[in-house]
């Protein structure tokens, strides 16, 4: 029932959006048409409704023409609804007396036929004008924002975001699933294009995270449950047992030396298995925190129960506790920044390159460790046998990138790190280096210059996709070598290059657990599986779930500078939200009309947020507005029509529908 | 030729129209009884689940819904090849007896009685239940309504719904009877027996004591020599709920006796373009037109025909009355249409006595209400005696029990042809050259079909009030020349 006491006076405005809409939809014609629709008092078209003059137009008419309903046909409400609601409110009209029609994303940008576009635009406008008459004045609900923030993932992005937030005086919880923070950056030797040592710039940040009074760092931990809503998230973090009392361990490594295993026996994750470690170990020398971890999958004590436990005895601080169980801590935060990073492409999947088949085919990350002074070979470039120095090395770009068989997207960083590795390999081994590339992509400050530098360093570049790597020698000098077959598109013939070592520049993929994280935090992923930003241009670090932000490679392949920049952006967004003190929630919550409710309780388990409760004495159910998130599922379930949803009442949707279909 | 139109025929359940054609001498040429209505249940129950159908078909007739519920319920049993548990069967028949009591009471007092107790040609203002009350005492009217109410209450208790019964499920009933309820029903049923005897006494004192009435019944233009149909038990006694269909000819000789499921070998229906209601007849005899006599294919299915078709009643008092009726009317079979009122009272007493019998069985309160169902549904026929004739429902289903085809022969449909013939005969006997067609005459015409208690009437007659009727005397062009109006 529209409020009959007041006469409905609708103002309609259609936006040309420059040529974006105007070139396809005949805006004046729509305005002309709308002016004849019921209750329409004002009907105008304007070049840019979202501009200040455009908004002025609306406000002026509200004041002078006594409009009490506003409809704007322009772009997507997801983009400018707030803008026009704002304008409506500025003129003293309740902002929910506004309805928006999407004739850009839904019409002019997707259709070419002007006649049909005009018909469609008119239909949509008619629908909105019918609907808006039923709109009611509503108030947004204000809820305070908890200033504490959760940051998930301790790579360079997570580290930077944490420090920014902490420095701004906010309480930060940084959760990292590995035993140390640092992420992939910690494994690198040098970083492009400046070739400064990764460790030198990263480790100080790592330790300041550890030392920072505002940061609570939980490594070897994972987020296990998230509930609540923007400003008020409830998060459960599960701390996996590392069998060491963190507060006692000083990282003296005595236990590691005393372990019953005299030698490292198990592949060392940090070095991608290029070296071996013991069941009790420190991930890497600068690991943060400096706390060892016991791997219960390999430790004798856990496997057989028959272990002298020399490690425990070696610890003069009694830091060992083999009975540790997973521990769940619950925290309340107002915002979340996800910096969960990426997963390198699994080289085995590119079968024609022989990774895993030919020992001397390496991945770029393995090589990062090989050339690293603190790596398994102390920076000496050696083949798998651990002694032979390669005389010739082929670096294959775009492995697991720009490839229909694996991943279509460009991983963005490979060209640059391949150049970097080419440089480092030449430097460390003096070997002949061949780069096999499709296109050389070096956008970025100093990147192209770095490429030039390499060209002058005598590194060979062959433009063409490598078809395969094998060891089928056809000439004596190919014997015992790996043959790289590739088409050289610059000279237009297929070439065979025999080399001692092959480096696969693997691309970046969404992290293993990206889907789980996405579900847990209720955000979306793009097709390839990276987290989806709210808007590719205007909201690159926001998500569709308010209060959840993303930064770094979890959003898409990114190099260090971009990751750090995004981390800053995400931190800024979170800070803005926190410092505003409160969030305004859409008032589109559901409400039960008690007099109609029969107490059948069908609606109750419709609600994923337990917002509906049944009162056995009254034999009635009711909605807790604070918990309701406004999906409207309960509304549709009620056989009595006892539930309505603000902004989406039956009569509002029905009138929109009828408006749409009547000619 | 003059054409008399009675439209609508009133005091009938459903719609009816009588067209009387007279020749220029004023003699009746022909009479058409038309049913202008069709709803198509046979078609639209297709696709419905068999277990739902017994509740859908009650809506064929809100006056005898119980009959359709039972017929369909029994058909559903057969569709699953299952017999209802003994308890369920008793509860069903107890309900059904109450259903008969309620209907027969109402019919006798509201419809039958006015014509006799008050008199066929008495002033119409008195010729209604109020007149009856005036004649036999004020408390009777109240008592009639009370007994009918009690019967309704029993139906509501057992049937789950006082009008559109919901008690049957394949293989049994939904709801049982508690011991207290049984005692209560028993007491009420005994009340019915008393009331039945009392009603019979009224009939004796008022009707049989009056020579003219007996004369009208026996010699009036109200006899129709046609075959008689009725449901009988193993001993050829009248039974309403179950048994075999027995048909005796005009001389009282058994013509057929068959299991209801075989009805298609014995009954066929013809269609006349001037009525939506079909005309059933005895298939083996064949359709000989709207004619009387031993060779006619026309049969009736009424309280009288049920008695004609049986060898007696299964309960003592009813049996006495049965014998008395035939001795007074000169032996079986009786073809006097108006004797249906008498037969109806005999049945009333039987129904009441049967109710007492059933309500006296302690086992009727057993919780064993539903038989287990194992068979895949296929096809089933259910037949009961409705107050107004043998009622048959026939359903075919797919393996999920969804109805694929349905065929119904409804109680009153059996009597479609007889009603037409009785009306014609009455009209011919009453409307003649020189006779001014007045209210009394017309009422006596209507008495002919009223006796059938066409499912068009039943319970609702108990309302007092004027009962006028308009007759149009038309010329050949159909222009109204003269109008006779009862008011």
């Amino acid at each position, binding site marked *: 029932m529209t409020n009959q006491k007041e006469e409905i006076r609708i103002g309609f405005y259609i936006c040309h959006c420059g040529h974006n809409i105007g070139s396809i939809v005949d805006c004046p014609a729509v305005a002309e048409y709308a002016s004849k629709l019921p209750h329409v008092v004002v009907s105008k078209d304007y070049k840019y409704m979202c501009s200040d003059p455009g908004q002025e137009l609306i406000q002026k008419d509200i004041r002078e023409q006594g409009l009490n309903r506003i409809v704007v046909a322009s772009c997507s409400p997801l983009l400018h609804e707030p803008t026009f609601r704002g304008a409506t409110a500025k003129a003293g009209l309740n902002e929910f007396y506004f309805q928006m029609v999407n004739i850009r994303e839904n019409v002019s940008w997707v259709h070419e036929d002007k006649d049909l576009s005009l018909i469609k635009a008119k239909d949509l406008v008619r629908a909105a004008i019918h609907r808006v008459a039923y709109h009611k004045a509503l108030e947004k609900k204000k809820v305070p924002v908890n200033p504490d923030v959760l940051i998930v993932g301790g790579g360079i992005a997570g580290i930077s975001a944490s420090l920014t937030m902490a420095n701004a005086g906010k309480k930060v919880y940084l959760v990292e699933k590995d035993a140390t923070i640092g992420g992939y950056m910690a494994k690198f030797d040098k970083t492009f294009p400046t070739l400064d040592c990764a460790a030198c710039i990263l480790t100080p940040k790592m330790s300041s995270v550890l030392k920072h009074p505002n940061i609570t760092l939980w490594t070897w931990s994972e987020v296990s449950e998230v509930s609540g809503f923007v400003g008020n998230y409830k998060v459960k973090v599960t701390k996996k047992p590392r069998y060491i009392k963190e507060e006692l361990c000083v990282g003296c490594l005595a236990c590691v030396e005393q372990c019953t295993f005299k030698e490292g026996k198990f592949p060392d994750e940090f070095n991608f298995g290029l070296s071996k470690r013991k069941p009790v170990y420190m991930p890497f020398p600068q690991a943060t925190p400096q706390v060892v971890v016991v791997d219960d999958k390999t430790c004798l004590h856990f496997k057989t129960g028959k272990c002298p436990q020399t490690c425990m005895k070696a610890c003069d601080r009694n830091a060992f506790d083999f009975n540790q169980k997973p521990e769940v801590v619950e925290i309340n935060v107002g915002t979340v920044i996800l910096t969960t990073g990426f997963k390198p492409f699994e080289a085995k999947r590119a079968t024609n390159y022989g990774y895993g088949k030919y020992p001397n085919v390496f991945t770029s990350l393995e090589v990062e460790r090989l050339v690293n002074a603190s790596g398994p070979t102390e920076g000496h470039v050696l083949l798998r046998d651990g002694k032979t120095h390669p005389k010739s090395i082929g670096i294959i770009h775009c492995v697991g990138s720009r490839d229909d068989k694996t991943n279509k997207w460009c991983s963005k960083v490979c060209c640059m790190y391949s150049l970097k590795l080419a440089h480092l390999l030449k430097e460390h081994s003096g070997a002949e280096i061949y780069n096999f590339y499709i296109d050389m992509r070096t956008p970025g400050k100093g990147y192209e210059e770095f490429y030039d530098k390499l060209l002058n360093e005598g590194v060979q570049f062959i433009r063409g996709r490598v078809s395969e790597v094998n060891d089928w020698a056809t000439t004596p000098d190919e014997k015992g070598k790996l043959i790289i077959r590739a088409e050289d598109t610059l000279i237009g013939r297929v070439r065979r290059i025999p080399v001692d070592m092959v480096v696969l520049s693997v691309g970046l993929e969404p992290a293993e657990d990206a889907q789980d994280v996405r579900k847990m935090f209720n955000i979306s992923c793009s097709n390839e599986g990276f987290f989806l930003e709210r808007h590719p241009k205007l909201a690159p670090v926001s998500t569709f779930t308010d209060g959840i932000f993303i930064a770094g490679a979890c959003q898409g392949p990114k190099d260090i500078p971009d990751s750090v920049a995004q981390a800053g952006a995400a931190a800024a967004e979170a800070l803005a939200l926190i410092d505003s003190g409160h969030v305004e929630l859409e008032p589109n919550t559901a409400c039960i009309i008690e007099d109609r409710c029969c107490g059948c309780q069908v609606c109750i388990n419709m609600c994923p947020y337990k917002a509906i409760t049944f009162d056995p004495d009254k034999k009635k159910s009711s909605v807790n507005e604070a918990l309701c998130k406004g999906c409207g599922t309960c509304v549709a379930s009620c056989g009595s029509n006892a539930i309505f949803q603000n902004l989406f009442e039956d009569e509002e949707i029905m009138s929109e529908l009828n408006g749409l279909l009547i000619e | 030729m003059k054409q008399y139109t009675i439209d609508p025929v009133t005091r009938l359940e459903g719609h009816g129209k009588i067209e009387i054609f007279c020749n220029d001498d004023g003699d009746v040429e022909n009479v058409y009884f038309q049913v202008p209505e069709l709803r198509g249940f046979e078609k639209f129950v297709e696709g419905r689940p068999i277990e739902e159908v017994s509740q859908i078909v009650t809506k064929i007739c809100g*006056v005898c819904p119980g009959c359709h519920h039972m017929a369909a319920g029994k058909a559903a049993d057969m569709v699953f090849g299952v017999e209802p548990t003994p308890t369920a069967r008793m509860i069903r028949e107890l309900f059904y007896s109450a259903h008969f009591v309620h209907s027969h009471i109402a019919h006798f007092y509201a419809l039958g009685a006015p014509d006799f107790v008050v008199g066929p040609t008495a002033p119409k203002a008195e010729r209604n239940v109020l007149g009856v009350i005036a004649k036999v005492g004020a408390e009777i009217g109240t008592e009639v309504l009370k007994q009918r109410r009690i019967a309704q209450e029993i139906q509501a208790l057992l049937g789950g719904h006082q009008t559109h019964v*919901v008690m049957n499920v394949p293989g049994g009933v939904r709801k049982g009877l508690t011991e207290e309820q049984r005692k209560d029903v028993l007491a009420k049923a005994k009340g019915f027996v008393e009331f039945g005897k009392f009603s019979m006494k009224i009939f004796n004192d008022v009707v049989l004591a009056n020579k003219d009435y007996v004369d009208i019944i026996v010699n009036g233009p109200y006899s129709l020599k046609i075959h008689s149909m009725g449901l009988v038990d193993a001993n050829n006694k009248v039974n309403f709920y179950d048994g075999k269909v027995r048909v005796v000819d005009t001389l009282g000789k058994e013509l057929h006796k068959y299991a209801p499921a075989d009805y298609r070998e014995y009954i066929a229906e013809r269609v006349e373009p001037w009525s939506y209601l079909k005309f059933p007849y005895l298939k083996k005899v064949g359709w000989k037109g709207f004619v009387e006599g031993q060779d006619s294919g026309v049969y009736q299915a009424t309280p009288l025909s049920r008695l004609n078709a049986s060898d007696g009643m299964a309960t003592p008092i009813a049996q006495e009355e049965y014998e008395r009726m035939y001795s007074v009317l000169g032996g079986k079979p009786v073809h006097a249409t108006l004797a249906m009122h008498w037969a109806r009272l005999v049945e009333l007493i039987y129904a009441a006595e049967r109710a007492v019998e059933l309500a006296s069985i302690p086992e009727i309160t057993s919780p064993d209400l539903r038989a287990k169902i194992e068979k895949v549904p296929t096809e089933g026929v259910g037949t009961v005696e409705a107050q107004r004739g043998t009622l048959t429902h026939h359903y075919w289903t797919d393996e999920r029990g969804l109805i694929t085809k349905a065929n119904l022969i409804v109680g009153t449909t059996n009597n479609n042809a007889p009603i037409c013939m009785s009306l014609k005969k009455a009209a011919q006997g009453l409307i003649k050259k020189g006779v001014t067609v007045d209210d009394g005459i017309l009422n006596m015409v209507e008495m002919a079909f009223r006796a059938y208690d066409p499912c068009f009437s039943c319970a609702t007659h108990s309302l007092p009030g004027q009962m*006028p009727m308009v007759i149009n005397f038309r010329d050949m062009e159909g222009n109204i020349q003269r109008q006779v109006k009862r008011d």
Partner: protein
Amino acid sequence: MANEKPKLKLAVYWGAACGGCCVSVLDVHEKLFDVVANADLVFWPIALDFKYKDVEEMPDQYIDVTLFNGAIRNSENEHMAKLLRQKTKILIAYGSCAHMGGIPGLANFTTKEEIFKRVYEESESLDNPDKVRPTPEVDVKEGHLHIPHFYEDVMTLGQVVDVDYYLPGCPPQTERLVEVFMAVVTGAELPPKGSLVGGAPRVQCDDCKRKKSEKKGITRFYRPWEVTDDGETCLNEQGILCMGPATRGGCGVRCIEGNAPCRGCYGPLEGIPDPGAKMMSAIASMLEGKEEDEIDKAIDTVIDPAGTFYRFSLPGSILRRKQK
């Protein structure tokens, strides 16, 4: 009872109906005399001998209240609906058929042709070699005969004439009728035209004594012989499909009291444009299962959705009838 007032002129008429509505009027039992004391019945074919002619001769608005029961199935029904509308002050659509189409409305699943074919050509007990069909205008040797035109579709009363009030139920619970009747007699203030009277403000579940819980979690529905009703738990929660959650109360949960699931004769509450849609939504909302085949299995046990959710209301539903 206000006897000094002029008596109310009451009419009762049926369209495509079963007579159950008239019986429900009769079920006032001994109160009948009170009714008669307050009202003159001026037209009631089932009970009184007034003819159509008498109605035609009445002045407009002559009748105070007409209880019109039954759906609109043929030309006679429609003619009388229009005639009575003209002669009546307060026209009440009485009972499910007049209200929503009722059981006769199930005919909207089929067509006139299909019905005639079934009844007059295919019926197993039929002997009609010449495929004779009833026809509205027939010449017999004695003269001309007429019967009404059988329509293609069944309609509700409200679809052919203006209706003042709707009194739901198949048939309406007699107590409700008496309440409404007395309201009119005593001149109580009546609700706005077009409202529904004689129904409860809430659905069946409100009156239903059976135990309900919030966890419905229905995995499938059962046919009567597949399940034993415990007699006390919500039928739907036992997997016995009951229309209660979307059906207006007022009948005294009579069917449910008889252990039979509600089939919705009282129709939906105000403001609900379609009688079955809400029920479908509610029923589907009680189901669990996420895998598509789980859901398919569950839905498969709702064997006749259209015939169940629209048992009494097909012509009154948004879609009105099956597409031909």
